[in-house]
């Protein structure tokens, strides 16, 4: 038997480490891994395949803590095993590992039993994404103290790039916090980065619509009209909150733009 090339060896070992799924690459390189007592060839290979899956599980467990808790330890391992087979990592960083996990869960049979799971995973992944989103370039502070109301109404908000808005079928933030007895109930959630933390806020339908419209470039006046938010106190409080947390970074007071 001639010795394998580096490519042949790596093709075979990659298959073995990733769980030996699918047909065995040829030539098989098993004879080129020494069987050295007291640790057999299979045990030596198992060290690598176990470490591979354990590392993926560890990282996804950190990113999808609530999904892992609800799926249970053994089932989460199986889910991750199936996931990494369906979506092998193509990134140098483990931070990217979970990007397809919510979509994977949607198509997995576990979604029949836990129908909110893919929305929960979407929410958890958005927290990771928010955390890894670069802040916008630093701009000089704006003096907003003496802006006339008419100018305000024509202004457009610059939304922080970390902001994610969700219209979920389930009360995902409550499930994430550990709520049991879950029933389907629409929820509106804002996720954003605050310093070195990812935060979220449960929104009303009106607040969600307002932020979505602003995110899409509507003027404040148009966004207020279309969102159906009429109570000035509620609007002022929401703006104050979003400006405090830099969800709304800056305002553009030029009259250009489109509604």
């Amino acid at each position, binding site marked *: 038997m001639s*010795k*394998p*090339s*580096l*490519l042949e*060896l*790596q*093709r075979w*070992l*990659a298959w073995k*480490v*990733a769980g030996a799924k699918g047909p065995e690459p040829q030539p098989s390189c098993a*004879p*080129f*891994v*020494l069987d*050295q007592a*007291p*640790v057999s*060839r299979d045990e*030596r*290979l198992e*060290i*690598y395949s176990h*470490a*591979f899956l354990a*590392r*993926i599980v560890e990282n996804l467990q950190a990113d999808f803590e609530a999904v892992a808790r609800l799926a249970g330890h053994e089932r989460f391992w199986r889910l991750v095993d199936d996931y990494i087979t369906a979506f*092998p*990592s*193509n*990134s*140098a*960083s*483990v*931070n*990217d*590992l979970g*990007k397809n996990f919510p979509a994977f869960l949607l198509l997995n049979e576990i979604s029949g039993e836990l129908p909110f799971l893919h929305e929960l995973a979407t929410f958890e992944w958005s927290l990771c*994404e928010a*955390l*890894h*989103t*670069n*802040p916008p370039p630093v701009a000089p502070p704006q003096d907003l103290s003496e802006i006339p109301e008419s100018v305000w109404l024509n202004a457009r908000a610059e939304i922080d790039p970390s902001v994610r808005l969700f219209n979920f079928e389930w009360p995902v933030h409550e499930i994430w916090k550990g709520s049991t007895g879950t029933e389907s109930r629409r929820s509106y959630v804002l996720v954003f*980065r605050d310093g*070195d933390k990812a935060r979220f806020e449960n929104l009303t339908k009106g607040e969600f619509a307002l932020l979505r419209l602003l995110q899409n470039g509507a003027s404040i006046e148009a966004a207020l009209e279309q969102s159906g938010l009429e109570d000035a106190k509620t609007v002022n409080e929401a703006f104050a909150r979003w400006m405090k947390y830099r969800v709304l970074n800056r305002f553009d007071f030029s009259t250009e733009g489109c509604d």
Partner: protein
Amino acid sequence: MALDTSTKNLGFGAGFRQRHKDRILSAPTRLDWFEVISENYFGLGETLLGPSLQTLSKLRERYPIALHGVSLSIGSSDPLNPLYLKKLKALIAAAEPAIVSDHLCWTGLNGHNLHDLLPLPYTEEAIRHVSERILRVQDELGRRILIENVSSYLTYAHSEMAEWEFISEVAERADCGLLLDINNIFVSSFNHGFDPLEYLEGVPLKRVGQIHLAGHTDEGTHLIDTHDHPVPDPVWTLYEAASRLIGPVPTMVEWDASIPEFEVLEAEALKAKSLVQKARHEQAVAP
């Protein structure tokens, strides 16, 4: 490319981990420098760098740093990943590290990353392949890198030489530096039954630009490089021997799982310092 001797006097450091971030950035430590994992500062997807670069900048204001990669995959049969190199180059420009290193291994194939440090066969083909790629990486980055020996759990029947001969040849042909992981030498020596001192004496010591120390897990029949324990006594003994042979070289302690309070990690690095001082003193007074 000349050997960068400025790394020779970095002193004693540790791996910078999230758990210790606030402690390290909020008050002085007794350590001289920190090593960070390069990929932790890369951006998601095509984005070159992520927001944690701000933390790295704060660390860099206080200490010299080393960038230690885990996904260069220098031994893979895949082409070198241009996006990876672009990210690493951007990180080097932003962080101005004293040392840049990665592992002498491969981590994936066909564009898929297994996120594991997989061993190479010790063959002439692998030497040619890896050394040529290190040369290209060093050209691309415009600086010398260090390559680290990994722990291994299997032996290839078609290997043509010992691991230390393989590493020596790669380092000579690539004209790169070595990051000598003393724990990895010990773990592999146990798993494969070679003499760790023969390993130490077999590598080109003048190329050693950094040393790693760490703990491992004893599974009875074999050792696993887990970085979740204090540095064990046999590894300290091997480190003393290495420091006598090599002389002053930046040394750091890695602790990646079951991470203790920062002061425990700090004490491990200071133990390394005291052992080196003791060895130097003994050498100075020897007849």
